[in-house]
């Protein structure tokens, strides 16, 4: 089976660090949100871990932003200007039908084109709306003790709390779908392996097209 080098070492470290942090943030967040039902570790420990990991997540996301800007890889997150809708329909059709028939993926992947059109839409929402909202609301909730004027005069804590909660639920839903979609490669584990080794097994007999013109 032919292989392509898809993920650099930095990308892999970044991804797994972010994944670990997000999962622990979800678990500690659940402990904080449902202390009387899901108290695995103590409340104080959960809060401390949650706060610390949140800063690690922010730092990791910031470094990733710089990396993607510096390497120009940020472009792969931007939807194509032409024919994007038809690409979306193509990708959706693949997931709805082609995948069951054993059809190849409609778009070829390489280092500069790792995302299919549906992933682009999803990450556009996550990176531009969900993550910033989650980071900002969490940061302000934590910062309320240092800058109480902000939460008292501008954004009430109750609103921040609700934004952060719904954001957490959406992240959890995303993680479910994200993990499942890693099984849609040539073999169920090939995408996971790719994210571990950097090398992805390319599909045999590919009738593929470039995802970008």
């Amino acid at each position, binding site marked *: 089976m032919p292989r392509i080098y898809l993920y650099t070492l930095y990308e892999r470290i970044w991804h797994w660090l972010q994944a670990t942090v997000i999962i622990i943030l979800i678990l500690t967040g659940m402990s904080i949100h449902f202390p009387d039902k899901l108290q695995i570790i103590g*409340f104080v420990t959960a809060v401390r871990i949650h706060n610390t990991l949140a800063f690690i997540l922010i730092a990791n996301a910031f470094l990733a932003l710089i990396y993607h800007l510096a390497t120009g890889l940020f472009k792969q997150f931007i939807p194509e200007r032409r024919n994007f809708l038809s690409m979306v329909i193509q990708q959706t059709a693949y997931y709805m039908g082609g995948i069951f028939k054993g059809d190849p993926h409609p778009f070829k992947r390489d280092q500069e084109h790792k995302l299919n059109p549906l992933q682009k839409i999803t990450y556009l929402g996550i990176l531009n709306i969900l993550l910033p909202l989650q980071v900002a609301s969490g940061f302000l909730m934590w910062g309320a003790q240092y800058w109480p004027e902000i939460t008292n005069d501008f954004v009430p804590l109750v609103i921040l709390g609700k934004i952060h909660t*719904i954001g957490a639920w959406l992240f*959890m839903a995303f993680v479910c779908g994200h993990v499942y979609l890693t099984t849609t490669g040539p073999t169920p584990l090939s995408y996971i392996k790719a994210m571990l080794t950097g090398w992805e097994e390319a599909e045999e007999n590919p009738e593929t097209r470039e995802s970008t013109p």
Partner: protein
Amino acid sequence: MIRLWPLTFVFIAATALSQQSEHPALMLLDKNEENVLTSGGPVSLYATCGQCHDTDYITHNSYHVSAGLDEMAPPGHLSGERAWDISSGPFGRWDPLTYRLLTAKSEAELDLGTADWIRLFGSRHVGGGPAEISREGKPLEELQAGDDLDPETHVLNPNTGLPEKWDWQGSGSVEMNCFLCHLPNPDNSERIRELKAGRFRWAATATLARTGLVKRSESGWEWDREGFDEDGVCELPIRDPKSGNCGICHALVHYGQEPLDYKHDLDMRATETEGQVYSPQRISGSNMNLAGKDTLSCPWDIHAERLYQCTNCHYSVNNPAFSADKQVNKPGYPSFDSSRENTGDYLERPSHNFAKGSSASILLADSLDGSMRLCESCHDAEKTHTWHPNMKRHLRALACEACHIPRIHAPARSQVDWTVLTPEGQARIEYRGVKGSVDETSSLVTGWQPVLLAREKADRWLSLYPHNIISSWYWVAGDPERPVRLQELKLAFFLEGAYHPDIVSALDENGDRVLSRSELALDTPEKTEAVKKRLEAVGIHAPRIKGEMQPYSIHHNVVSFPWATRRCKDCHSRESRISQPLRLAAYVPGGVVPETIVRTNARMNGELRKTPDGGLEYRPASGDPQVYILGHDRSVWLDGIGLLAILGALAGVVVHGGLRLYIYRQRKKVK
């Protein structure tokens, strides 16, 4: 060891000296500045103390003295007060706990004249102010009763219910009573006896009953020459006020070795309304029948245990020893004001305006709000709460008292119901924190958890403070409305010393023709209507029931770290301490939902809920936009939507993945 003996003697001598008063011997003078031994008259504090102290300055700089006399206005003119309140202080602000209404000058009917106010409420008033000066600023002793119904010269005869002229020249007035606060053992019961008897000018003299200088005889008070030297000079152990002096009017204060005895008494106001007890004694050492007593090894109040006196925080605002770092009513610049008074000036003219906080129920002398030593004046909470993961936020959102007064171990009033009268002609009163009658020493005192209400701190941030809420119901009538006078209530409820037959017929549930305590409740429309008819029968026009809630903030009964609220789950859980309801009433008289008193600084934005047993409880608001309590403030619908999103994602995974697996296996079979 032998070498230490001299030191021991020095220590004993120093201890003995410290118990003695440093006040010089003094001559007790009467109003005409004549020695009381010569005149035989009552002591005049102004003449006696005025030999060295500026008593005029003192009486004019004391909200304990003025008691609201300087904040009076016609009924309906005070912002945020009831329609019938005529002052912000005890002299003129109606209190549902004591019920009687000081009659305004403009009122056609007399309820409480000034002399009756002194007789009834003088037990908690230090004298001077309205007990000495009329509302127009004239000495009361110069007032002559005319034919007009003037509340300053008339009182209501409790037997006939008719106004009577008051003889101020005969009774005298009540001077500010220095002895009450500056003697270690003032005889308050004798003072109150004189006040109730209307012998006002003798009240201060009676306060000296335990000094050996004066004794009661059949003809009145007689000075005892044995207590004076040959020059007519006496020694009195005059000193600065201790907590016990404040406790005479404010709360149960106990410093003795003997076990603390609890008794309920409205004169010990903070104990009655908030269950506050100021004592260094361990709670387990009291005589009370307390639930879990053996485990209560903390003192009633940690500050009392550390021997702090009330005046350490509530000091005279010009006391140079205390006010040095508290710039009351002074600009922020310069940071050090070297022009403050020296001790000599202070002793001559000590302000008797005491530094105060801004409690939810004490409403006079607003200008002094926040002038007292607050917790943060002595404690640096940020240094002692470093264990807390979100310390600053908590210190801002919670007053120290919220965690350090977790529970009150003495009963406090919860409900006062004047819509019915007990056989003694008083309101039916319910207490919280006690099982059974509060009058019975055998009743089990269970204690109670104060409700947390938001109030503005001195720095203007909202913080949660512990409170009690007392709900009161009473009849009002007329336009503008006034509480129905106690005299008419009694007329409606009683006939020849027993309950009126109509009242018995309406309220007697078990048919034994005797009204038990539990039957004294207007908990059905029929009972309410029956009492209303009785009131109308005695001439009350359109009587109706009103209900109100008054929050009382709690700042004493402070416990130290081991007993304070400190487990995260106490607040960060569904059953959070923050949202714990407070039972307001065992029943709702007339079905009338009580309204929060307007003039209070506590935020009562929670909700009232009827309990299944017909009672009423107050549940603090959990949706305050400035407060979001992790683990408690969960939105059910938001969590529902989130859960649905996850279930949706999982369902998609299961269906899609299942189909893929199924097709994969089918293909494999075909191959």
